[in-house]
């Protein structure tokens, strides 16, 4: 299939082609949306094999429900919503928590970060002059993002990595826009507080 043509193809004709039995058009839908689906599933589901199963189920579900898609949102947003719901169902089945209580406070974060340091790299916490490399900082940030609750991680990723607006994220997660905003503010504040010692270590 001509790739340039695929990119230009709007949601509606693409969906109609699938509904008329052209399953190849469905492949284009997968290719267009799997980045977003990956972001959601990676943040919500830790187990590698489960991720694979869920990702496949998401698209089989998309295929089955495509008839019911009414183009009220972007196709990718709708697919993201199905991915999010599938991941939430998975967490529920595994009895895992979507959002932890606010006991996950910023101060608690600082303490554990320090312990992480002394455990991983002996004297690092005491050496203020020891400037961290970009790579090390990125690694620490990754660890800190992973420590957030599945929902917070997902919100941060959708906003900062997928460049989605608050309203699009609200559609995917089916949360009120105000809640999305306030969760995001909290998640960012938590991250900043946990990483503050690192950022202070380097000249600002």
């Amino acid at each position, binding site marked *: 299939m001509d790739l340039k043509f695929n990119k230009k193809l709007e949601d509606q004709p693409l969906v109609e082609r699938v509904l008329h039995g052209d399953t190849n058009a469905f492949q284009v839908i997968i290719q267009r949306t799997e980045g977003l689906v990956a972001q959601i599933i990676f943040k919500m589901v830790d187990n590698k094999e489960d991720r694979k199963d869920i990702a496949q189920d998401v698209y089989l579900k998309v295929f089955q429900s495509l008839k019911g898609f009414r183009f009220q949102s972007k196709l990718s947003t709708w697919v993201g919503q199905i991915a999010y719901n599938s991941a939430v169902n998975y967490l529920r089945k595994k009895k895992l928590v979507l959002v932890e209580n606010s006991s996950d406070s910023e101060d608690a974060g600082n303490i554990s970060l320090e312990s992480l340091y002394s455990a991983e790299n002996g004297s690092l916490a005491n050496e203020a002059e020891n400037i961290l490399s970009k790579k090390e900082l990125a690694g620490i940030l990754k660890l800190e993002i992973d420590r957030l609750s599945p929902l917070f991680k997902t919100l941060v990723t959708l906003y900062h990595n997928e460049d989605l607006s608050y309203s699009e994220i609200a559609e995917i997660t089916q949360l009120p826009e105000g809640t999305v905003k306030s969760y995001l503010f909290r998640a960012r504040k938590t991250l*900043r507080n946990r990483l503050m010692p690192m950022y202070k270590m380097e000249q600002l």
Partner: protein
Amino acid sequence: MIDNHLTDIEIQEYVLDASQCTKVNLDHMQVCGHCRVKATQYKRLFAGIEGQEQAAFDFDLAALVMEKLPANKNLWDTYFEWWLAGFVLLVFVIGGYFLRTDLKALRSSLTPLIFLLILIPVLALLVFLGFDMYKAYQKKMKALNFY
């Protein structure tokens, strides 16, 4: 010493989109070192998040999904049921046309009661079979819907 520092939310908003900030907050940011340090930390944090490696599946998701989908349908497959129904109807019409004299003779040789006794069970059986087929079809479609 400056009081009334911006809240974390206000500083985040300033970093994300300064054009949405109030004039008071913008003026404060110009003069307050404390809030500027915080803003710089947020800036670094956001840049750090955006620089994180993107999650990606290490398998060919499209290929896996496509394997599980029904094969590509063409127009013939899509309308197969209709073609079949049309063909059966045509057979009945043509058959009825050629056998019209025999059917007429049959109809007149039977009393109306016997004729109805044959016609009603036949129609009932057809309706029952049709309904049963439809139900089996619905069940199969449902089995494909998980979650």
